[in-house]
């Protein structure tokens, strides 16, 4: 059976070119960048070239890029690092109710350490309101952390306005750009971003590698202790193959950005339009315009997300859902609930996230079978037609 991958927000395939470069830095150019000999100098050079490429992707300077083991570590380092280093200035952090768990659980941990955290609510499109943000700021506020784009419903936040406000107030602004980096144009200078988290496996580099951008001058305390790697901010032998791969993926992402965004958005809009036409009793989740190019998220009323996923899976299609039943937890997606969706509607959500490898043909196949599957599940549902 043909397999169709529609789950690019969960993870992406590594680019062939990236993977082959990584292989070279595993079997041939394997020196430790801390070593003074030829093997070490060779990888040190590659490391710094990768740093330049990652910096270029978001218009940062190379020395503002710090490599991490992924998005989760980046988020932990940004929040804890800023909180600990700036404790004397204040103990208040502002974030949103719809962040990824890497942010939310880190904030909960910081609350136990004596910090106070405001979780901004969102509107029905998963957007924060600038008014709420302004009202939340106190003289104790040291950090605002608002995600660039939401991983479930794709809503892109008003990053530029937030950056502007944070700058005026002299508060650091961190954004979890794990979904956006490499998939959407970002200019940290123009957007006034102080810290930005990215993760390689969301844009065709490998799992287990990421980067944190820290604007020059921002005070951050290290959270992983050891050798003085990454200018004393992140100890541990550098993951050279991962880093070199991240550099290459960043280079490709920057080069192809415009074309990729247009192409993926075309597929996305075809899915949204067709489903809206063909399937009754549905709701598009997320913002209609300010939305990631590859994100489709629908609630299909009267049916449950996991059953929908399993049926798609049996037809070779890999997608995802905000249903609690897929995660083993009891509550459905905190994002859908924060947007005000009732439990049973949140349960019936389906997320399709597209990548540059997807084709029109795949989209058509999907659009052909979804109405049938939805119909079949509804016919079993005690909520439907009664």
């Amino acid at each position: 059976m043909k397999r169709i991958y529609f789950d690019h927000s969960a993870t992406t395939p590594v680019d062939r070119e990236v993977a082959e470069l990584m292989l070279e830095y595993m079997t041939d150019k394997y020196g430790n960048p801390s070593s003074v000999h030829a093997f070490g100098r060779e990888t040190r050079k590659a490391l710094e070239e990768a740093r330049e490429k990652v910096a270029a992707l978001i218009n940062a300077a190379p020395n503002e890029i710090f490599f991490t083991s992924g998005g989760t570590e980046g988020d932990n380092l940004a929040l804890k690092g800023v909180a600990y280093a700036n404790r004397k200035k204040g103990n208040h952090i502002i974030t949103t109710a719809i962040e990824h768990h890497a942010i939310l659980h880190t904030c909960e941990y910081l609350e136990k350490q004596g910090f106070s955290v405001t979780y901004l609510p969102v509107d029905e499109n998963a957007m924060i309101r600038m008014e709420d943000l302004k009202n939340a700021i106190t003289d104790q506020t040291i950090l605002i952390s608002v995600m660039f784009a939401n991983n479930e419903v794709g809503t892109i936040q008003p990053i530029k306005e937030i950056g502007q406000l944070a700058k005026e107030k002299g508060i650091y602004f961190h954004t979890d750009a794990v979904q956006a980096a490499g998939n959407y144009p970002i200019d940290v200078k123009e957007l006034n971003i102080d810290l930005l988290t990215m993760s390689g496996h969301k844009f065709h580099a490998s799992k287990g590698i990421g980067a944190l951008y820290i604007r020059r001058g921002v005070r951050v305390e290290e959270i992983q202790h050891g050798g003085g790697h990454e200018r004393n901010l992140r100890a541990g032998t550098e993951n050279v193959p991962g880093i070199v791969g991240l550099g290459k993926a960043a280079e490709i992402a920057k080069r192809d950005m415009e074309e990729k965004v247009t192409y993926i958005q075309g597929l996305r809009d075809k899915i949204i339009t067709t489903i809206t036409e063909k399937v009754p009793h549905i709701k598009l989740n997320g913002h209609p315009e300010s939305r990631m190019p590859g994100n489709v998220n629908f609630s299909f009323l009267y049916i449950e997300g996991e059953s929908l996923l399993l049926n798609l899976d049996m037809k070779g299609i890999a997608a995802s859902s905000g249903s609690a039943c897929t995660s083993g937890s009891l509550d459905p997606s905190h994002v859908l609930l924060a947007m005000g969706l009732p439990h049973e509607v949140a349960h019936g959500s389906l997320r399709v996230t597209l990548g540059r490898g997807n084709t029109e043909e795949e989209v058509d196949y999907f659009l052909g079978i979804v109405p049938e599957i939805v119909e079949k599940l509804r016919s079993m549902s005690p909520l439907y037609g009664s």
Partner: protein
Amino acid sequence: MYNEKVMDHFSNPRNVGEIKDANGIGEVGNSKCGDIMRIYLQVEDDIIKDVKFKTFGCGAAIATSSMVTEMVKGKRLDEALEISNQAVAEALGGLPPAKMHCSNLAADALHEAIKDYIAKKGK
């Protein structure tokens, strides 16, 4: 995640639907997780002549619903009352641990339907 037997019952659920003149109907729901199961019974001489279900829920919820209908069709009510949620899960060859509490409710729905039948008959 699910074994073959569960997937079989999920993809080809047995006895889906409603019984128009059912003389016992039972419904249970797990309000937290959101799943709902409804069982329709046609009982004659304390024998389950026909049984159908409708379920809103995950793969496990649908598979257990399907399984329980197979298990009780043709059975006497006292036999049917002895079937536990555990027995349904076992008949399916087991469920993922996370699903045991949340969606393994089919026997409960069946028992509710039987109680409904008995209550109606008593009137």
